[in-house]
């Protein structure tokens, strides 16, 4: 693949988006005044189906809004062969949707033919880097474009890990020439679960490769934080978002909500808060992202 442009060209910017969820179709499509959202992110697999109402609604949303595709099943870290059927269907959906970009997670989701349907952690090793880089290159070649890889929340560390998560992510992005979807909530969750400094994470990621931010809520269980996407975003994650804005500048930002999904108005208010946070942060004198 020849990526269409050098990665250090100006970062495309979509503004503030939400995850497209079926419970909101009606409000999005029937309201004469379009909701105040700049773009939507879809879960790719939800639309990798033969036909019916979901694809019809997707087409109608696409007529009104830019979309990006976010997958959960690429399983880029798996040691099973890449699923060619999956990639073919992913590409067909991309041809239909014409997304601004396509993302998935830096993780594995299955092995030995079994799909675990979870974002499972990889060991941070040179072997895993080489393995993932080769697969990202194959995927990018198939799709004819760079993909974004997202950092996942994790709950354990492998003994064999030989570097930090952000070193692992950054090295893969550089070697595979892919882009990064930085999930601010996941950085926060993992920094608590593994006791690292989230600002070190932000400072360790190559700014020119960051194309998108995710924001989400989580569940704090005292000893461990679980990435549940079922609550509003907490203050500490908003603060980390402000740090990320100072470090990376304007980056397309969206809010993920996958459970206990509130009415659209509530998410739009949360998205407005993200706008305000971004405007205030970026208007303020620039300070280094250090404690």
């Amino acid at each position: 693949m020849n990526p269409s442009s050098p990665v250090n060209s100006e970062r495309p910017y979509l503004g503030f988006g939400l995850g497209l969820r079926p419970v909101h179709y009606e409000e999005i499509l029937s309201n004469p005044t379009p909701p105040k959202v700049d773009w939507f992110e879809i879960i790719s697999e939800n639309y990798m189906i033969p036909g019916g109402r979901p694809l019809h609604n997707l087409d109608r949303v696409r007529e009104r809004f830019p979309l990006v595709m976010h997958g959960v099943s690429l399983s880029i870290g798996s040691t099973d062969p890449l699923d060619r059927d999956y990639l073919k269907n992913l590409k067909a959906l991309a041809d239909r949707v014409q997304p601004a970009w396509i993302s998935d997670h830096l993780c594995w989701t299955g092995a030995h033919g079994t799909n675990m349907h979870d974002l499972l952690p990889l060991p941070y090793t040179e072997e895993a880097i080489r393995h993932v880089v080769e697969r990202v290159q194959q995927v990018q070649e198939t799709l004819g474009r760079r993909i974004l890889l997202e950092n996942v929340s994790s709950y354990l560390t492998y003994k064999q890990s030989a570097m930090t998560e952000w070193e692992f992510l950054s090295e893969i992005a550089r070697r595979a020439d892919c882009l990064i979807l930085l999930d601010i909530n996941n950085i926060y969750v993992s920094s608590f679960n593994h006791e690292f400094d989230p600002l070190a994470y932000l400072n360790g990621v190559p700014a020119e490769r960051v194309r998108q931010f995710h924001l989400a809520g989580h569940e704090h269980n005292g000893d461990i934080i679980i990435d549940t996407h079922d609550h509003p975003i907490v203050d500490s994650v908003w603060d980390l978002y402000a740090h990320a804005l100072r470090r990376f500048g304007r980056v397309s930002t969206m809010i993920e909500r996958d459970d206990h999904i509130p009415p659209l108005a509530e998410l739009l208010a949360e998205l407005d808060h993200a706008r305000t946070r971004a405007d205030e942060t970026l208007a303020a004198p620039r300070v280094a992202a250090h404690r």
Partner: protein
Amino acid sequence: MNASEQPPLAQLLAEFRRHLLDQPSDIQTHIVDAGSVDAAGRLSVYANAYRSRLLEALDANYPELHKWLGDEEFRRIGQAYIEQHPSQHYSIRWFGHRLSEFLRATVPWNEEYSMQALADFEWATSEVFDAANADVVAIDHIASLPPPTWPTMRMQFHPSLRRRQLTWNAPPIWRALTRNETPDEPSETESPITWIVWRQAFAIYYRSLDVDESWALDAALNGANFAELCEGLCEWIDAEHVAARAAGFLRQWVQDGLITRVDA
């Protein structure tokens, strides 16, 4: 632990997978025991999430069966199904596609025939929901075909069409459950009844077929032309009435939105 004891990536993932599937695994020895949660506790986050996510997916695909059975029984079935049939598809949307087959084969549900039938029927409705789209032919089109072309006429059917042979009254039970009404008691017929489920625009329809229509639909799906349908229908209908009966089926199929193409 020295470097030679570190498993290669493939082996590490295989151990992790075995752990999630509740099979013997040494994955715990490769996890850092640090902070306030030990390695076993950290692994259990993943094991719990694995099962609860698949149970959620099963609930999404079988909401009416879930209502009918109640939480406890549905969960018991779900857990057993997850152990027996881990997901092999990249999309969780297809998780549960073997549930009725699983129930038929598994004690103590292997004699719960109405439960099996409801699972079977509900899965058919879920397949219909997002089956491929296709344009259907209008009744005017059929009416405009010159009579000499009728005998060789073959039909193509909508990709959403699903057929089920049921001896239990699962469809009315399913309908009552979707409306949050009290369903009828399960009841059995002497011989199986053919039900068809399909989509017209975006609405799901279903109905039962008489035995001759069931045969004719089967034959038409297998490529029989109109003359062959008439010939076969002679088993149930007098020869003088058979063409009218077959034409009646065809008209009904067109009105149902089941026919996408007629090749004369």
